[in-house]
């Protein structure tokens, strides 16, 4: 029986050879695929092995708005967002499965500790065997301004169901407030169990699309706030605030029977008024006619100079301007006919910010900020500082960058003068702040001109102290109904007051 027993031995060798070959295939050849497979929970466990860094607002000494705390579970740390819905669109969230959003995504490497900037910490960890936390991110956000912005949007007096606020530091481009309403609580989305996916599904299906950051990713007709840009175009074409414009109750552009009217019959019934007066009372007929006179070329050039048609703009970290939160492109829509000439009926309606003109709230805030800063438009950004795990070692500090020159300094001064007139004498009185020079422009889409954008309430503006800009702001209340622009102006004033408060009244 020994011969068959030896053959059985050969069979055993073959069976074990197959096992060995197959283990080589699974562990060596396919090992890397399996190690990094999306189904492999170890990927997350490794990621959660180290405490993720804080995200903080710019106010010194304030509590973090994103932090990770130790758990007893499989994943060592749980992310939480004490700031809740007010900060959700800026910070985003870092879910266990799937990609992060907002600053959590933008600074993921730094927060998680894998960034090259934290190489020294990683090297030390190898020798000490400890798990030093990731780096900490300080945002440009001003806490009071941000809290005010979200709170006022959520509790606006008109019951508008959506809206957005952006506040900028005109000197630097730092985003002091960026709120989008409706928002969401990011905390359930970072849960370690399947409740996270359920929470996401619920939000996705919710009316009003709370996950959308309206400040950057939604465009609206700017309505009368666009008259600021038309004014800038006029100044660049050798007009000045005192240039007389033809006003009146109605304007019929060449080539159309459509008559553009004013918001109320008492707005500007007189035949003639200055550019400054026309802006102060927001005279539709004067600006429609002015736009047609200026022509599509000049309107387009001015709009580009203030940031329209920039589809590459990202807001985040100034050292990596190709990354960051995506900003929807702002556009004027078609102003020329198919033969290339000016499409005057379209220009007329576009000049009062309707038709197919579309802006993001950020873009509109950038217009106000440029004017406040002598037409030096600064690149907007969110990340002020990157600090090491010890909370003291500074590893990056934002160096503000000019994005473009939007007009000349003297034109900017003239625009400021006109906008200050709007807040002091015209439609934007609710934005006034005592002790500060506030300029701005309201906007209300009227049902007459554009059925779809019925009644958005807009306000864009700035606050100055001693000739220096303090803040610029844009507020929109979507579908706010009557009085929308007045409510927007009130909120804008409160947000700018918040900025001033955080700066210590300066």
């Amino acid at each position, binding site marked *: *029986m020994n011969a068959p027993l030896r053959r059985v031995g050969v069979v*055993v*060798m073959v069976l074990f050879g197959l096992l060995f070959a197959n283990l080589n295939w699974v*562990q060596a050849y396919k090992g*890397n695929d399996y190690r990094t497979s999306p189904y492999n929970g*170890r990927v997350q466990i490794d990621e959660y092995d180290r405490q993720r860094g804080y995200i903080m607002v710019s106010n010194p000494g304030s509590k973090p708005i994103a932090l990770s705390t130790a758990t007893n579970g499989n994943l060592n740390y749980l992310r939480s967002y004490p700031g809740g819905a007010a900060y959700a669109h800026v910070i985003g969230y870092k879910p266990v499965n799937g990609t992060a959003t907002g600053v959590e995504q933008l600074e993921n490497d730094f927060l998680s500790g894998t960034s090259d900037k934290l190489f020294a910490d990683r090297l030390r960890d190898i020798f000490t065997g400890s798990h030093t936390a990731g780096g900490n991110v300080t945002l440009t956000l001003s806490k009071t301004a941000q809290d005010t912005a979200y709170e006022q949007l959520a509790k606006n007096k008109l019951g508008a169901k959506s809206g957005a606020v952006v506040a900028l530091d005109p000197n630097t481009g730092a985003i002091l407030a960026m709120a989008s309403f409706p928002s969401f609580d990011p905390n359930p989305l970072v849960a370690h169990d399947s409740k996270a996916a359920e929470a996401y599904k619920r939000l996705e299906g919710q009316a009003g699309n709370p996950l959308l950051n309206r400040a950057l990713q939604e465009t609206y007709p700017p309505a009368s706030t666009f008259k600021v840009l038309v004014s800038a175009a006029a100044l660049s074409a050798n007009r000045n605030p005192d240039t007389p414009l033809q006003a009146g109750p109605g304007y019929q552009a060449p080539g159309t029977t459509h008559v553009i009217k004013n918001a109320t019959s008492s707005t500007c019934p007189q035949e003639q008024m200055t550019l400054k007066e026309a802006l102060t009372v927001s005279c539709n007929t004067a600006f429609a006619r002015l736009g047609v006179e200026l022509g599509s070329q000049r309107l387009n050039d001015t709009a580009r100079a203030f940031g329209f048609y920039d589809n590459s703009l990202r807001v985040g970290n100034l050292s990596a301007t190709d990354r960051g939160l995506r900003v929807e492109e702002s556009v004027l829509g078609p102003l020329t006919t198919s033969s290339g000439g000016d499409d005057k009926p379209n220009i007329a309606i576009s000049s009062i910010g309707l038709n197919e003109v579309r802006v993001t709230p950020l873009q509109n805030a950038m217009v106000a900020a440029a004017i406040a800063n002598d037409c030096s438009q600064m690149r907007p950004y969110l990340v002020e500082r990157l600090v090491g795990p010890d909370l003291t070692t500074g590893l990056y500090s934002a160096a503000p960058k000019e994005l473009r020159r939007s007009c000349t300094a003297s034109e900017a001064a003239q625009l400021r003068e006109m906008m200050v007139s709007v807040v002091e004498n015209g439609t934007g009185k609710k934005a006034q702040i005592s002790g500060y020079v506030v300029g701005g422009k309201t906007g209300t889409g009227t049902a007459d001109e554009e059925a779809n954008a019925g009644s958005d309430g807009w306000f864009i503006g700035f606050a100055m102290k001693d000739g220096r800009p303090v803040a610029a702001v844009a507020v929109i209340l979507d579908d706010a109904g009557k009085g929308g622009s007045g409510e927007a102006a009130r909120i804008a004033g409160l947000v700018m007051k918040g900025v001033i408060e955080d700066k210590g009244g300066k």
Partner: protein
Amino acid sequence: MTTPHTAPPAAAAAVPETPVAAKPSLLHMDPAARRVRRTELWLLLLAMAMVAGYLAAVEANMLDTVTMDFWYPAGVLTAVFLALHVVIRLRAPFADPVLVPTVALLNGLGVAFLRRLDLGRAKIDDRPELAIFAGDGGKQLLWTLIAVTGAMALLWFVRDHREVSKYAWTLGLAGIVLVLLPAVLPGSVSEVNGAKLWIRFGSFFAIQPGEFAKLMLLAFFAYYLVRKREVLALASRRFLGIDFPRGRDLGPVIVVWALSLLVLVFEKDLGTSLLYFGMFVVTLYVATERVSWLIIGLVLFFGGAVLAYVLAGAVGGPFTNFGQRVEIWLDPFAEPYDRGYQLVQSMLGLGTGGMFGTGPGAGNPLLVPEVRNDFIFAGMGEEVGLFGLTAMLALYLLVVSRGLRAALAVRDSFGKLLAGGLAFTLALQVFVIIGGVSKLIPLTGQTTPFLSAGGSSLVANWLLVALLLRISDAARTPASTGGVRR
């Protein structure tokens, strides 16, 4: 019967200060046996040192420190195996010295890994205080105690392996009853994870009768085939150059084939079915030296398996489970969170381990479902890597090869068949489960010998080792040392 272990005068001369003893004694051994046992002792201590090293590495990775008590499980195991070593000295002094240390190392690594799983499940603060007999690791330690006691008892009371053949028919009948018992019992008592292999007593104690049935059936096969080998080897028809047996001699093989298919269908377990059938066909082949039996066996088994898969698609019913297992095997990633979950997690664990593994205690084997039972090899694979698993495969291969060697060397046919069958059964079981968790073949619920948590498997496999020890002792006892070998 006469005891073969009476110390010969030569041994007495080697130890002059002690008078010649009439009874077997530790002090009066054949010098050759003494050398063999000394080898075993050193190998055993080396194996236990490796287990202690594994335990220390686990603590270093999981507690960031090594406690003073890290070696306790290894200490208990060493004591247990030393007791076995002493029994072998007394009752099987010439037995193969490699078997016990190799199996002890596998057993010890199993205990250490199960303890590592317990640590992983414990809260971080409680980990340093985990009691030695706590959790799966502690239970496995206790079961090792029981299993090795069983092996010692077998060595002590069964002085000659041929005694087993006296009870062959009883064992065969008991084996069949044990195989079929879970199938006829209600699912609430016998079904765990879709396979009806168990008999449960209450909620925490369950035995897998199939583990013991394996040994009993094998003893019966060996006895039956030794007696019938001439008849079964008779050629009747030559076809394609191979001699095929007479039709009427096919009876027993058909019975076992039907039995294994019954297991497949009603216990929903391809692994056990394959194990019984492979075991039978190989002993048949060894007994008759006829390749035709191998061919008939393979055709019948794979024909049956394919038929069952086809029936799963066409009829469903009792075949559904088997059909599903084949589909999961073909593409586990088709439903990675559903039916394919176990196998997908097993593959991911193995893949994460890569070449060298994360190190004992540094991986996440708890992500693999059933990691304490069926998937223990995948769980360990994450931490010891391809190199570690290859070493463990080599350990199994060593045990199997030593078993086959005993079969080759032993003089009687029953011993040859029994040892060859036991060794091959062990190899086949390792192949079925490790091939299953690494997606070489469809996964079926088998225990991994000496590693998986579970008393039945451990006790049965240690009895298997004891039988191999007994046979190897018979094979290696020199004819000149007075051992009266019948």
